[in-house]
Every structure is written in C-alpha cells, then in structure tokens.
C-alpha cells in the first residue's frame, strides 16, 4: 500500500513539474516570438516605403488662371474596364504567332472608331496605350488615376479595405464644382470616393472573382437606365462613371486563354457600341483599363503585360483632337511600338478638358493629342507647369539650395519661356519623386536586423548549445526575469523621453516596442551568461557542428540563405530548393547503400571518437557496433534505401508542378495552370492518389504495429471519407469549368460541401483528437505451458508518434480544401516525403540532429513552390478565399488564403514534433525530457526560418537600389517574414503548447496514473 501511494505521489509530483515547465516553455518561446515580431515590424517600418500625403486642395480653375482657356466638355462618361490589356483592343493578325482567338480581335469597336474617323479627318477619337505604374492592383490604380500621384508599395496591402481617399483628387474636384457624379460598378470606388458620389450611385461587391457577371450586368443596366435609353434633357448627371470587372474576373478565374474571355469581351464590345451611339455632343467619353493581366490572368506586379492598358477618348464633336504622326499608332507586334502615355497623365488631361483645378498632388502631364493647336497646347502646359511647381514648392520635396533644386529651378524658368522644356521639368520632377518615395529609414532597418540577430542567437543558444536539461532548469528564471526587464527598460526609455521632452528617431509607440525587445534580449542573456562563458559557448557551437550530418544541415542552410545574394538565384529558388532536398536524399541513399564508417552521430559518442587515435579504432568500432547507431542491420539498410528513394521520387515528381514566375521566361513551362488544374487527367490522378495515400500511411503505421485503436478509424474512414468528399468538391469545380454554359447553379452545393468539410476537419476531428485517440491495442496470448495470460500492448513503441500523426492529418485535411487539384497532388506527395524523412532520421538515430528539422524546412519551401506559389504578389491565389464564403467575410476568406499559402509551412511546423515522437516509446524518456527535445527540434525549424529571414533582410537592404528590388527581393523578403511568423505561431502555439502538451499528458496519465 505504501509503495503504491508513494508511486502516486511521485506521479503527481512529476505531472505537476511537467505542467509547470510546459507553461514556462510556451511562455519563453512566445517571448522569443514577440522579439522576432518586433524586429520584423521595425525592419518593415524602415524598408516598406510610405509616401507623405499632403491634404492641400488646389482651388484654381484653369478658366480662372488663363483668359484664353476654353472648356471643351460639360459632361463626361467614364467607363473603366478592369484589366483591359492593350492587345485586347487592337486588331491582331490571325497569322501572328501571338494571336489567340479567345482574347484577340473581340473588342474591335475602339480601334474601328479610331481608324475610320482618323481617315475621315474627323479627329473625334484617340486610342492610346496606357502605361500603369506598379503595383498594378485596382486600388492603387484608382488612386493613381484620380490623384495623378504614385501610390507606394505599402498601399498594396490595403487592397482589401480601401478607406476614403485623403488627398486632392479629380473626383473631389468635380464634386467641389457641384457636378453630379453617378457611379456604378466596383465598390472600391465607393470606399474611396463615397462622400463625392451621388446618392444614386450603385456600387457592387468586387472581390468575388468567381462571379463573372453581376457587376457587368449591373453596370450595363445602369447605363441603359441613365444614358442609353434616356433622353438628353432628362439626364441628371454631369459625370457618369462605370467600372466593369468581368474581364478581370475571367482572367483571375480562368486565365485569358478561355472561351469565357471571348464571350466577356464581345459583351463589352457591344456595350461600348451602345454607349458611343447614345452620347451627345457635349459629352466626353473615356474608356480605359486600369491595368493589364499576365499570361495567367493575374496582375499586381510590373511586367509589360500587367502594365499595358488602354485609353480611348471619344466625342461626337469633330475636330477636337490633334493626332501626331500616324506612324506613332503602329499596331504591329501587338502594338509594341504604339504611342503610349502614363496613367497619371489622365488627371491633368481630364482636368483641363472639363475645367476643374488640377489636383494638388498631380505629377502627370496633359496628353499631347488633346490640344488642337500649338497655342492651346501652350496654355495647357503652362497651367500644368504652375500646378507642378506649386506642388514642388509646398511639398518641400526638394531641399532648397541643393544642386537638384537649382536644376529644377533652371528648368522651370526655361519652361516658362519655352514650353517644350516643360516636359523635361515634369519628367525630372516625376523621376525625383520616384526616387524620394524610395527613401529608407536606416535606423529602423538596423534596429530590426540587430534584434533579429539577437533572437537568432538566443534560439541557437537555448535550443542547441545549452543542454536541454539545463534549459529546463533555466526557463523558470528566464521568464520572470524577462518580464521584469521588459518593465524596467520600458520605464527607463519612457522616463528618458519624458525628461528630454523629445523622442529621438521614433515616437512613443515604437519606443515601447524597442524597450520590450530590449527587455527580452537582456532577460535572456543575463541568465545564460551568468552560467556560461562566451568562449565556452563558441566552443560548443563548433562542437555541435562537428558531426557529418550537422555539417550537411548547416551547409544547406547556408546555401539557401545565400540564394538572396543574386536575383537569378531568388528567381529560381523553386528549382534550387528541390535540388537541395534531392541532394540530401541522395546523401542518405549513399549512406544506406555503402554505410561508410564515420564518426558516430549519437550524442554519447560525439567528441570521444578521434580519428587520429588509430589504436583505439578497433575499440571504437566495437563501441559503435554495440551502441544502437551505425552500422545498420541489413533489413533497416534496405528500408532506408527504400525511404530515400521515396523521398527522391516524391520530391522530383512534386517539383514538376510549377506556376513559373514571369522572370523565368521561356525556361519554365507552367504546369499549374487553370487548364491543368481542372483537367480530367488531374482529376484521375487525384482519385488514384486519394485511394493510395491512406493505404500508404497505413503502411507506415503497420511497420510500427500501431495500426490499432483509433488509427483505422481515422485513416480508413475519416481520411478516406474526407478525401472522397474533397474530390467531389473539386470534381464539381472541374465540371463547372468544362461546361460552356453552366445551366445548373452549383454555388450552393459547393459552399455547403466546403463548409461541411472544413467544419469536419477543423472542428470535429480536432475535438475528437483532443479526447485522445490512442493507437494501441492489448493482445492477450495464452501461454502454452502456463495458465497465465500474457498481455502485449500493440503499438506501444510508437504510441506518441501514431497519435500525433493523426493530428497532422487533421490539419492536412483542412489545408487540402483550400488547394487546387494540382496542389493537392503535391500535398499528397508531401505526406510521403514527411514520413520518409521521419523514418530515415529514425533509422540513423539522428532525432537530436539539426538535419531533421532542416530537411523538413527545405521540404516546406519546396512544397510552397509546388503548390502553385511563387514569392510574388500576383501568384497569391486570392480566389481560394471564396471557397467557403461567396463574399469577403472576416475571418473565413483570410483563413482560406492563409491555409492555401502557408499550408506546407504549417504541416512542417507540426511534423517537427513528430521527429521526436515517432517511434519513441514512453518507457525511455521522461515527459519533461521529451518536451525539451520537441522544443529543441522546433527551435531548429525556427532557426532555419530566422536565418532565411535575416539573410533576406540584409540582402534586400543591400539591393535597395537594385532595378529588381520591388519585383524580386522585396516580395521574397515579405514572404520570408510571413513564413517566419507563421512557423513561429504554429510551432509555439500549436505544436508545443497544444499538441505536444495534450499528447504527453494523456499518455503519461494512461501509464502512470
């Protein structure tokens, strides 16, 4: 009795200890996470540029400024056709290799009008190529089109919640002149210009890209009501604006090369015809696109196809425009040499045509064609020049008495006399602004880099260098100290600021963040340096890298981090990462086939075996043989070879799926295309994989005889059922895509199905998992020669791993819903990759080595690319946000996009726990030790992502003036930040706080309670 009570007491004590240290570990890791988030925030603050917006409003009408000026139009109809690429509207010869019947020669009206009236010398229309400024997202383009200024990169993130535009803009100017502005179409306008638009306006939901027709039909019927079927005198509006989204949405949904594009364009063409017929003499018609689209139908970047859009101006009056040399309007080679104007030039142009003040922040220049003669042109140019000069002076963009200032001043004086110089002035001012809005805050950047470096050092120290037993003893002193240090440093810094009554560099909020980060750093370093000397730590660092596999891991991490030193490597990262994974797999394959005798990697022997001491060789070999490390038995070698081959084949197959970034050019053929995603072949492959994957997982379970208890239910029923339903969902989508005229509306069915699946996998299964589905079975054998029964627990040796993997499967299912069929194939392969890596690591007994987490991390990057992503903004699959909701709803849309983009990272963040838990029988390690090892492996994963993030910080700063910075390095650095953040969150909160904690508690209760 006494013994039993003792045992119970011991168990209670141990359990309590575990709970305490678990909480402390989670707190500690969260604090490191906070440190990293702060450093990322600092870096982004310094690097992502923001433009200083001036609220001044220009109130001088052109007619007030110049007596000779005459207003050309009273009214205007402005029609914006989203993503109207320039080659959509010009004739393309069907023999041209670029010709495509789905999107060429459908919108013919614009060019017909232009060319026929040109021939008749009517001069009533202009068709120009319209060059947008990057970023080519609709919100930024609308800002540019109405303010005449250059929205900066950081604005790109606010596409999902545009707020009323602050600066002076064309719509505001029109409103101030009491013009009645009717608007219909994309509701981005409503959020930007709401106060200025008439109450009769009719905005439509815009970001639901699956919906191709609602907005367009709305625009057409609105125009029918207010323009086409209305008598001239009844018209209540002065400005009628329409914004159609159909073409853009077809691009996002199907890509330009799809028959739907043709239908949409023909509809647009008819609509334009109707408008042209119905406008009156005093009305100016402007038809334009806000940006183009790339070959996949997406936009956001700055490739030629995304930038080139269309501008068409028309009036019933004859002889209002003056066209230049006809050779300017050369439509050969899809209009490569066609005359182009900047998008911001529209702002002064419309202002001058409609007699409203040119918006204060404008940087554009009136389009040449709008002035009938030289005299008129001079008037226009002088007016714009005054506005530009005023802007330059008031904004203080150029510091007085600098070389640049004198240069501009000189140009300005010249321009006043000779108008032809004025364009140079405008051009220089524009370039100057582009430069200035790329001014970085180096103090913030350095702060961010330094804090991130410290967080990296802390991670390395606590997860690798200091033994995990010591860390678990240290953590209780870390956490309170960190909190105290945060308080102290906040207090110090704020009181210093209070004393000096002045905040250097940052404002109070940023100083608080700074102090918090500083507190965390000091709080971590004090206890460590109290125990260890720096020399010892450095020695440990190299000791840790003394074995073969650690060096391999470190080598590949360094190579991966060095990819950001060149734009070419960054562009080809998708291929290179796959190459690395395969290289590691080849190394393991070599290891299993030849079993070269090398220093043992098990922790016991590190540092003991010395290659120079040849007398001891025999002893050492004996030692190695006795310990459970190398050499491996024949059977496990064979198994190892098999796993390596599985890893190689899966990686190679997955890496054939690619969306190709635009810079890869002809060297890459995209396979992740809309066509392939919804082809029958893909559907068949997914069906086959759907049947095979549960069986292959079963195979891994059977090897450890853990296919017991909950495992068959989970894998054979839940997983199969889910995958079947999921295939059903994507099958419906495929059918929807293939049908030319979908008669049945599948939206409701699809939404219900997707929501059911998400609820099932995210909620039901995780609740089920929380209850503790054990994968063991008790087998009772009757011994022949005795009456006693012997009980064997089947699956005891893998009791942790088998249960933990079920949790990974839950998340895997959630992620599957939000991935397109091709990406699903890649994810199926990913499960096999992960299991193969886990088994290989287990065979080598490298559970403590950095190679495990590092290989998994490489796989997460390789899978990020092979699930149809690239480190660019246009490749984000926005449309998956509408799988479970048909309109933007926080948080469901965001969850969808997040799970789609960071799915592989999430899976890997969870699997890192499996490295420790797989085939880990509960008898050997104490719960606390187990937790310490999971933290250590999770820490390695964080180290990997932190090193990448740090490297991208350093190199993006180094390349800040590089031609490609906004196109290549900056998106990659944003991606590095986001993947670090999501890995942090999942490793700390899900893997360590939730999953491991629950699992270890449950299993220990079972065996020791």
């Amino acid at each position, binding site marked *: 009795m006494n013994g039993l009570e003792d045992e119970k007491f011991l168990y209670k004590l141990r359990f309590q200890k575990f709970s305490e240290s678990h909480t402390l570990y989670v707190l500690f890791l969260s604090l490191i996470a906070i440190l990293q988030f702060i450093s990322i925030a600092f870096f982004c603050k310094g690097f992502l540029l923001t433009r200083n917006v001036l609220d001044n409003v220009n109130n001088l009408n052109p007619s007030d400024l110049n007596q000779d000026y005459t207003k050309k139009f009273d009214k205007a109809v402005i029609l914006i056709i989203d993503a109207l690429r320039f080659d959509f509207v010009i004739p393309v010869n069907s023999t041209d290799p670029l010709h495509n019947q789905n999107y060429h020669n459908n919108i013919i009206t614009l060019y017909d009008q232009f060319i026929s009236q040109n021939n008749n010398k009517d001069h009533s229309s202009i068709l120009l190529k319209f060059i947008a400024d990057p970023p080519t997202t609709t919100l930024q383009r609308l800002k540019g089109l109405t303010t005449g200024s250059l929205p900066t990169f950081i604005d790109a993130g606010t596409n999902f919640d545009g707020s009323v535009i602050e600066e002076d803009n064309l719509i505001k100017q029109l409103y101030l002149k009491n013009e009645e502005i009717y608007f219909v179409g994309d509701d981005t306008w409503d959020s930007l210009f709401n106060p200025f638009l008439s109450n009769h306006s009719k905005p439509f939901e815009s970001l639901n890209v699956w919906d191709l027709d609602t907005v367009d039909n709305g625009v057409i019927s609105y125009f029918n009501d207010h323009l086409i079927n209305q008598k001239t005198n009844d018209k209540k509006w002065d400005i009628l604006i329409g914004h159609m989204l159909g073409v853009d949405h077809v691009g996002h949904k199907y890509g330009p090369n799809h028959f739907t594009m043709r239908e949409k364009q023909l509809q647009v063409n008819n609509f334009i015809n109707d408008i042209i017929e119905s406008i009156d003499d005093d009305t100016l018609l402007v038809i334009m696109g806000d940006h183009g689209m790339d070959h996949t139908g997406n936009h956001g970047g700055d490739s030629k196809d995304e930038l080139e859009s269309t501008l068409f101006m028309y009036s019933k009056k004859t002889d209002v425009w003056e066209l230049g040399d006809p050779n300017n309007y050369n439509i050969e080679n899809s209009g490569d040499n066609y005359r182009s104007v900047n998008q911001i030039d529209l702002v002064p142009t419309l202002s001058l045509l409609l007699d409203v003040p040119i918006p204060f922040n404008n940087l554009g220049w009136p389009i040449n064609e709008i002035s009938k003669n030289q005299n008129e042109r001079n008037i226009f140019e002088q007016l714009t020049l005054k506005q530009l000069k005023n802007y330059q002076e008031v904004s203080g963009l150029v510091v007085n008495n600098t070389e640049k200032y004198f240069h501009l001043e000189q140009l300005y004086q010249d321009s006043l006399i000779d108008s032809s110089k004025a364009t140079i002035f405008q051009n220089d001012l524009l370039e100057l602004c582009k430069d200035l809005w790329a001014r970085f805050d180096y103090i913030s950047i350095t702060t961010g880099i330094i804090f991130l470096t410290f967080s990296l050092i802390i991670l390395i120290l606590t997860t690798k260098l200091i033994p995990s037993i010591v860390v678990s003893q240290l953590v209780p002193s870390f956490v309170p100290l960190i909190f105290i240090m945060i308080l102290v440093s906040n207090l110090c810094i704020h009181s210093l600021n209070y004393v000096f009554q002045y905040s250097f560099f940052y404002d109070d909020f940023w100083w608080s963040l700074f102090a918090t980060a500083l507190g965390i750093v000091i709080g971590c370093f004090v206890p460590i340096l109290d125990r260890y000397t720096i020399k010892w730590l450095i020695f440990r660092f190299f000791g840790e890298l003394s074995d073969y596999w650690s060096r391999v891991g470190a080598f590949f991490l360094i190579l991966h981090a060095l990819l950001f030193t060149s734009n*070419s*490597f960054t562009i080809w990262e998708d291929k290179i990462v796959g*190459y690395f994974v395969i*290289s590691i797999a*080849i190394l393991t394959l070599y290891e299993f086939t030849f079993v070269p005798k090398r220093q043992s990697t098990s922790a016991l022997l590190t540092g003991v075996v010395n290659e120079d001491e040849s007398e001891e060789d025999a002893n050492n070999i004996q030692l190695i043989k006795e310990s459970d490390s190398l050499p491996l038995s024949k059977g496990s070698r064979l198994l190892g070879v098999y796993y390596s081959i599985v890893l190689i084949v899966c990686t190679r197959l997955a890496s054939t799926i690619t969306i190709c970034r635009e810079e890869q050019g002809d060297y890459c053929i995209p396979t992740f295309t809309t066509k392939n995603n919804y082809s029958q072949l893909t559907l068949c492959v997914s069906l086959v994989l759907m049947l095979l994957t549960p069986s292959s997982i079963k195979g891994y379970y059977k090897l450890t005889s853990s296919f017991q208890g909950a495992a068959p239910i989970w894998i054979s029923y839940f997983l199969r059922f889910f995958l079947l339903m999921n295939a059903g969902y994507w099958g419906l989508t495929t059918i929807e895509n293939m049908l030319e005229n979908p008669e049945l509306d599948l939206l409701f069915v699809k939404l219900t199905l997707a929501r059911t699946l998400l609820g099932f996998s995210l909620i039901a299964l995780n609740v089920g998992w929380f209850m503790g589905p054990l994968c063991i079975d008790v087998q009772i054998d009757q011994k022949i020669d005795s009456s006693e029964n012997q009980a064997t627990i089947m699956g005891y040796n893998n009791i942790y791993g088998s249960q933990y993997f079920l949790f990974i499967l839950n998340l895997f299912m959630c992620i599957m819903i939000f991935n397109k069929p091709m990406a699903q194939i890649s994810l199926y392969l990913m499960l096999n990759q992960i299991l193969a890596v886990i088994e290989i690591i287990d065979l080598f007994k490298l559970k403590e080595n950095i190679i495990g987490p590092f290989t998994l991390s490489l796989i997460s990057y390789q899978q990020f690319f092979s699930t149809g992503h690239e480190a660019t903004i246009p490749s984000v699959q926005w449309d998956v946000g509408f799988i479970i909701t048909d309109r933007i709803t926080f948080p469901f849309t965001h969850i969808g996009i997040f799970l789609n983009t960071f799915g592989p990272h999430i899976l890997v963040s969870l699997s890192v726990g499996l490295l420790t838990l797989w085939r880990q029988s509960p008898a050997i390690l104490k719960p606390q030790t187990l937790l310490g090892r999971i933290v250590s492996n999770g820490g390695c994963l964080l180290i990997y992502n932190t090193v990448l993030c740090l490297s991208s910080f350093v190199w993006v700063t180094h390349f800040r003036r590089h031609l490609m910075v906004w196109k290549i390095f900056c998106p990659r650095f944003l991606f590095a930040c986001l993947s670090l953040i999501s890995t942090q969150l999942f490793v700390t909160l899900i893997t360590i706080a939730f999953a491991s904690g629950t699992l270890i508690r449950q299993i220990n209760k079972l065996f020791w309670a």
Partner: protein
Amino acid sequence: MPVKKRANVKKSVTFSDDTTLSHHNTKKKNIDHDHPPVFVRKTIRTVPWHIIGLLYYYIYLSDDYDTMRLLYLLIPSQVLYLVFQFNSATIYGNKILKINYTLILISLSATILLTVPTLLMIIVFGAPLVEKLRESWLLALHACYLAYPAVYSLFNCDFKVGIWKIYFIFIVLGGWISCVVIPLDWDREWQAWPIPVIVGSYLGAFVGYSISAFT
C-alpha cells in the same frame, strides 16, 4: 563541404565494403593501412593532364561547344590514360597487373550501361523529364567515361575494393557544384544545358584522379 569530410574520415578505415579482408589481416593491421592489397600509388603520374587539354579545347578552341565531338575525343584519351598512367600506378597486392585488353572492351561497354542509372540520377536532380533527353544522356556519357578508369579497376578487382568510390564521388561533386552557374542571368551560350555540368564534372574528375590516391 560534406563529401570532403567523408573522405577524411575514411582514412582510418579503408575497406568499408570488404570486411573479410580486414578480419583476416588483423595482425598486419598497421601495415595494411599503409599497403592495402589494392591501392593507387601516391604519384604525380596519375594526374590526368588530358582532361585539362580536352577542357581547353572544348572551351577555347572549339567555338560551338560540340559535346558529341568532345565525347569522341574523351573515350580514346581515357583509354590511353588508363593504359599508360592509371593502371601502371595501381598496385594489386604487391604487383602491377598488366593491362587486360578484353577487360578494356568489357568495361567500355559496361560504362555505356552505366549511363542509364546516371541518366536517371541526372533527371532526378532536376534535368527535364522528356525534352533535352539527348543532352542529358550526353552528359551521362561524359560523366561515365570520365569514371572509366575507375570502372576498369573496379572490374579488375572483382568489385571487392571500395577505394574506387571516391573517383565517382569527385565527378558527381564536380557536376553538382557546377550547377551553380545554370540559373544565373548572364545569357552566355555556355550556360546552355548540359555544358556547365560537363565542364564541372571534367574538373571534378581532374581533381579526383589527381588527389584521390592521397586521401
């Protein structure tokens, strides 16, 4: 440099695959470390100067990077290298075996067979699956014929001695490292597949044949 490290460790235990031999000769253990039954003499004579010559020709003299022609030049020069340099520096037991002309032919054809797994490996490492198959195979041929002297020696000692592995590893390593230039956007004609990897494996082979005996 992972592979290099591996080479260093092997110094102490030479017969990784040949356990019988090392067990029999436990008495002469120390002697065996200096004079194993099959080894390549540590001599400057094994340096394959012809590889440098071929590379010089390939890069500077021929202006079209004709990989096929290079192969025609490589095979005979490798045979000559084997006969006059490599084989005469290889010591079997205590003697130098005379060149076996049938074995030369056998290993010549065996090398062709070896290209199939090599091609597989090249594709696994990321060469296009279908298109450019001819180029990939040419690369495989080059890589295999670079390893030809080692293949011959491997045959000559009945696949028992593992010291030849290092020659293959050096060639693969050379090719592996040379991939670094492929993604660069320099737009040079020699960046075309498989020229950089061929040059890399030649350099790897040169280093391999020159220094492997010393490791």
